[in-house]
């Protein structure tokens, strides 16, 4: 913008450019810049070398056939279990946070602050090492149980705050209407408030789910047997043995295969909710 003002002052006799013209010029400049960057990138890069490192044909086939499906399923299992656990515990925590009984509010508050502040990787490590502290302790479902519990506990802290916000976003009149019809508080909550709250928070909850998909890549830290490999661990191992990035690229694309349909689904649900609203 500063250039525009200086030019208008130095070239006083000429008519000032109209705002629309100026905006048009700015748009052209942006296109030009983009094209220059592309030309530079293409001229410096060696497409054959790039293909060899990131997308080598034989390695693509190796990666696809040596258990990618299993790793993909593992990532989905880890995520789904943690999400279900986090959602359930998060709902309970959110209700505790809004409870009339003060100690429940405090407990939920402490839990949320604690586990929201801890990196997921620390919690995972802790759960992985828990049997050291409590000999004989066995978390059910083996590695899956450990991952579900650790990621679920962290996710619950985040989701509790989201769900609480959702509950508070439901207009007070909805509860009043439900109570005026004779519904006890529990039924009013379950049938009227929570369904509307979850409708409101579907987009942020999906965000949590997508974050969880990516957090599941941390499970390597607890030491997995080959059967428990998730996408990242699987891709990384193959990439290291072959000194080539192709397996990691494939693993990365698999994450998109999970998250992109989720984003699409949410957008559809949102537009449907918009119509019902």
């Amino acid at each position, binding site marked *: 913008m500063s250039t525009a003002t200086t030019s208008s002052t130095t070239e006083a006799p000429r008519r000032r450019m109209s705002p629309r013209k100026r905006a048009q010029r700015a748009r052209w400049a942006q296109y030009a810049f983009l094209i220059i960057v592309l030309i530079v990138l293409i001229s410096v890069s060696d497409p054959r070398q790039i293909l060899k490192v990131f997308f080598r044909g034989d390695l693509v086939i190796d990666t696809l056939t040596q258990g990618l499906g299993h790793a993909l399923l593992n990532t989905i299992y880890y995520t789904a279990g943690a999400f279900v656990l986090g959602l359930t515990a998060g709902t309970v925590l959110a209700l505790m946070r809004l409870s009339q009984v003060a100690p429940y509010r405090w407990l939920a508050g402490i839990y949320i602050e604690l586990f929201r502040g801890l990196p997921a990787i620390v919690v995972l490590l802790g759960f992985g090492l828990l049997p050291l502290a409590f000999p004989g302790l066995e978390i059910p479902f083996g590695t899956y149980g450990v991952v579900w519990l650790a990621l679920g506990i962290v996710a619950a802290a985040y989701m509790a705050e989201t769900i609480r916000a959702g509950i508070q976003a439901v*207009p007070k009149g909805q509860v009043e209407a439900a109570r*005026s019809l004779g519904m006890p508080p529990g039924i009013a909550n379950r049938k009227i408030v929570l369904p509307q709250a979850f409708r409101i928070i579907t987009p942020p909850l999906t965000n949590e789910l997508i974050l969880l998909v990516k957090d599941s890549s941390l499970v390597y830290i607890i030491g997995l047997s080959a059967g428990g490999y998730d996408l990242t661990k699987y891709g990384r191992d193959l990439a290291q043995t072959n000194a080539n990035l192709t397996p990691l690229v494939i693993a990365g694309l698999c994450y998109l295969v999970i998250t992109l349909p989720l984003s699409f689904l949410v957008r559809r649900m949102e537009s449907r909710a918009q*119509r019902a*609203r």
Partner: protein
Amino acid sequence: MNESQSWDSSPVPSVVVEVNNLKKSFDEVEVLKDISTTISKGEVVCVIGPSGSGKSTLLRCVNMLEQPTDGKVLIEGEDVTDPDCDIDRVRSRVGMVFQQFNLFSHLTVLDNCTIAQRTVLKRSAAEARAKAEDTLARVGLEGREKAYPAQLSGGQQQRVAIARALSMDPDLMLFDEPTSALDPELVGDVLAVMRRLANEGMTMMVVTHEMAFAREVADRVLFMDGGFVVEQGPPEQVIAEPQHERTRTFLQRVLDPTHVEPEQ
């Protein structure tokens, strides 16, 4: 109108609502200062008064949406201010219609009218559905069962809200400024439904600014100001020949909004 005897203090067997020395404060502000009144079966009582006079609070104290600070409210003889009272059971017999409709936005029109029948009265799905269809027809909304509240006009939404309350077979209906949030051309439909309800013998307590409705339908008009009932009686008395200065001033403002007061 022989109701004129029923609102004095002598107990009448068919009293639906009895309010005794009701007081309500929000923090330091005393909104209701000693209110007493009774409503008999089949009576239609319109509560009028300037905004902030406590009329909505009075209505909300009747079904305990607001907790009274002091005094008693009896519904069909049952003291709802008593902590041992099963307020949910009493509320299931007291329908309420809100200014902002408060329809359950995630449920269809039909489900709005059946959910409390199912969960509170434990009616079967078929029974609840039949009842809902019947009440929806009574408010002129047959055929809209599958619609969501957002797909309806304000007037239609308010009529669904009335149908929702009627589906519970209430003994008493409370209306909290039911037409205040409506576009002027939609007010008539809602008032028509309420008028029909009154003619069918429903006991009604209506907080309203619709003076024409009060004059035509009410058996008794209650004028409130500053947390007190200033004046009450049949509409031809309270609205047509108000005894109190404050009632006169209020009615003048409501009936002729362009009127400018001489002292200002």
